């Protein structure tokens, strides 16, 4: 269902923008331009540029240690870039704190999920909803809606510490959704799920884009899921952009085949 949309997204973005391009992304985009992050002497992300709009699902892939999470950290305000800019809806937001970015529509999930384990599932969602200005009772009702949407209604009153792995990840997504994001960054949402669960999660992510009208950037190792879900891919290796384009384009890219799938001559 998602694949049919590929033709609309055939335009291939350049890897690096010129200085002129850095002057503000469009109203509908979240953008990293020329972002570099270093830890001590190690460069985790080097001059990476990536942008995605609402209604778009972009896959961020690459081997372990490629800098995917670091880039997501930079986009969500958890990591200040050494150089480069982060731009949200036409505004330069470089150096903004994560909570400020979250208030302005950038929500994310974590590999480690990080639910409030001593709170119930519904309370986890309600906490996020309160920040959107809802009263507690309204938040409670809305939390039920969101949980229903993610097929988690029967888990509403379970303590988060008692969830199984798959449900835990869904609640993490539900909590991010509760912040009414314009841009949703998912860090390995399908890690540890079996094939069926991953498939189901892929459908959920696609429908989130349609129903909530937000752009989604997803870090994922499950290539089957990525190929099916994403309209565009951005490949990182050792902190640098290796390839970008539609999944078919990327798969055909010799550099990608070489680095990511291993040399197969």
């Amino acid at each position, binding site marked *: 269902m998602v694949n049919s949309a590929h033709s609309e997204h055939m335009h291939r973005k350049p890897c690096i923008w010129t200085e002129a391009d850095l002057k503000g992304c469009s109203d509908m985009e979240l953008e990293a331009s020329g972002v570099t992050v270093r830890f001590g002497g190690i460069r985790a992300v080097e001059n990476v540029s990536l942008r995605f709009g609402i209604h778009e699902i972009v896959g961020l892939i690459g081997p372990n240690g490629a800098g995917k999470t670091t880039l997501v950290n930079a986009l969500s305000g958890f990591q200040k870039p050494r150089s480069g800019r982060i731009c949200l809806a036409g505004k330069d937001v470089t150096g903004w704190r994560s909570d400020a970015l*979250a208030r302005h529509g950038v929500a994310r999930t974590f590999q480690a999920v990080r639910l*409030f384990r*001593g*709170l119930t599932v519904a309370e986890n969602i309600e906490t*996020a909803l*309160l*920040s959107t200005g809802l009263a*507690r009772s309204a938040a409670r009702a809305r939390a039920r809606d969101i949980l229903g949407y993610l097929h988690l209604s029967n888990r509403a009153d379970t303590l988060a510490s008692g969830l199984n792995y798959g449900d835990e990840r869904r609640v993490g997504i539900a909590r991010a959704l509760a*912040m009414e994001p314009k841009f949703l960054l998912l860090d390995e949402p399908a890690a540890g799920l079996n094939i069926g669960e991953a498939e189901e999660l892929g459908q959920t992510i696609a429908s989130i884009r349609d129903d909530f009208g937000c752009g989604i950037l997803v870090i994922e190792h499950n290539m089957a899921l990525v190929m099916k879900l994403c309209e565009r891919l951005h490949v990182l290796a050792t902190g640098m952009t290796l390839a970008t384009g539609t999944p078919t384009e990327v798969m055909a890219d010799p550099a990608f085949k070489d680095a990511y799938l291993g040399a197969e001559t």
Partner: protein
Amino acid sequence: MIAVLVDAFSVGGLYALTALGIGLIFSVMRLANFAHAEFVTVPAYALFVLSGHPVIMAIASSVLIAVMLALATERIAFRPLRGIDPATMLIASFAVSMFLQRLLVFAFDSRIKPVDPLAVLAGSVRLFGAQINLLKLTTMVTCLVLLVALTVFLKYTRFGLEMRAAAEDFTMSRLLGVRANRVIATAFVLSALLAAVVAVLFSAQTGFVHPRFGLQIVIIAFVATVIGGLGNLVGAAVGGFLVGVVSTLLQSFLPPDLRPFREAFLFFIVILVLLFRPQGLFPARGLKERI
């Protein structure tokens, strides 16, 4: 027997409220607030200053003073240190505690002052065939009511939910829009409310205040917090009750010769508990990672 139980639970209740006051602040900002002692002492002095005025007014003023003191302490001493390692904050709270204590000595000298805020409750009632001290009964009931009220607050109100989220994972709660300043201020206000109630009830029992008035109860409450599991509110309450009940039972059932050494037995039990449960009876989650 019933008299002993009421006695035990009234003492335990006071420790529980004090331990909760400490626990509330610890859970949201990892500050072991030693100055909680003065959050108890200062309102007790307010009762002394206002003795002679209507009881309700004296109590209301001392609660108000405790809350203002707590907010001022947070703003002046602890907010600038926020996010610094817990050991530094602990030392800072020692400093605040000493400062306030010396201030009281300076203002009132260090001799004991008589207070009797709840003289109306001097009598006793007959209950289930036992003479029950009315003040102790009131203490026990007040503590239980406050525990229930606090639970309802934490469970069903907006601020309560935000506090619990912040206590679980402060960074994450901020990301989700919980305002750090507000949640910490709420913790200090609640902590001060509990401290003021303890001040009223405890001073009514002892009948006097002195500059180290709060310290004696706060030291024990700290032990209770550790026994219950630092950073866990249920643990703090249970630990408080446990310590109070055990020390009262020791007082009642130890042979008279050994009663002066009651505390030694109490702390021996504390050591035993910590030997087997070093994290306390109800360990808090996620104590390691911090803002």
